[in-house]
């Protein structure tokens, strides 16, 4: 099996791509997708570390995988609410460009 370093390295690369996506794109939908990518990178790190410390026979440790399931539930909730915001923003401003909604910017 591959060394765990490479799993965590892949997780770091994916997280960085997500951060750059959120920082550079102006399309709110793609920004939400980049946030999903970051959450997935964290999930991969959880799975990798759980593979590293799997417990023993009779006392299997699955905390990492349980946390991944919780992160997936939170991500689903976040996408539902975020896309609701996108729809109401498009309805009011006729665009999903984040530069258009700058009322609260200092």
């Amino acid at each position, binding site marked *: 099996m591959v060394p765990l370093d490479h799993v965590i390295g892949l997780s770091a690369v994916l997280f960085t791509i997500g951060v750059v996506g959120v920082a550079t794109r102006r399309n709110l939908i793609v920004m939400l997708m980049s946030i999903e990518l970051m959450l997935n990178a964290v999930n*991969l790190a959880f799975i990798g570390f759980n593979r590293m410390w799997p417990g023993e026979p009779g006392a299997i440790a699955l905390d990492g*995988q349980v946390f991944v399931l919780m992160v*997936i539930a939170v991500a689903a909730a976040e996408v539902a609410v975020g896309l609701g915001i996108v729809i109401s923003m498009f309805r009011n401003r006729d665009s999903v460009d984040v530069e258009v909604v700058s009322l609260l910017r200092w």
Partner: protein
Amino acid sequence: MTVPAVLFYAFAALAVLSAIGMVVQVRNTVASAMSLVITMVALAGIYVLLEAHLVAVIQIMVYGGAIVVLFLFVVMLLNLRSDDFGPARQRLVRLAAAAIGVFALTWMLRLFSGLPEAPPLPEGFGGYREVGIALYTDYVLLVEVASLLLTAAIVGALILAKRKID
């Protein structure tokens, strides 16, 4: 190299390439969503290689199925045109983002190098039985909180997307 290692690097390359494609794809939001699907499925393959079988199945069902379909649904509902967006952020912002990205990447890679070898697995690790037992005994409170959260999210999304609040 063994077969799992080859598969891992293939899935990793696929995930990274399609993630980059998702971020740099500026014309077409549907193509971004499709790249996201490819990343999710490649990650599910890696989860299988890391012996997290139930999580891999749920990854494909929830991310590859529900979440990306929701994205596509909204993109097609809004009927976005490619010229809706002006030029990307200013060059300074993009440079700063790239610099922060490279810095964070090298820092994380240095932090997580030299990890020990993975130990042999106990029987049943990552299967639905063991994960289910963990979910409904030690973490039953978390499951209840997650169900509450999802209910609140459904109600919130409905209210946000409603045309007019009475």
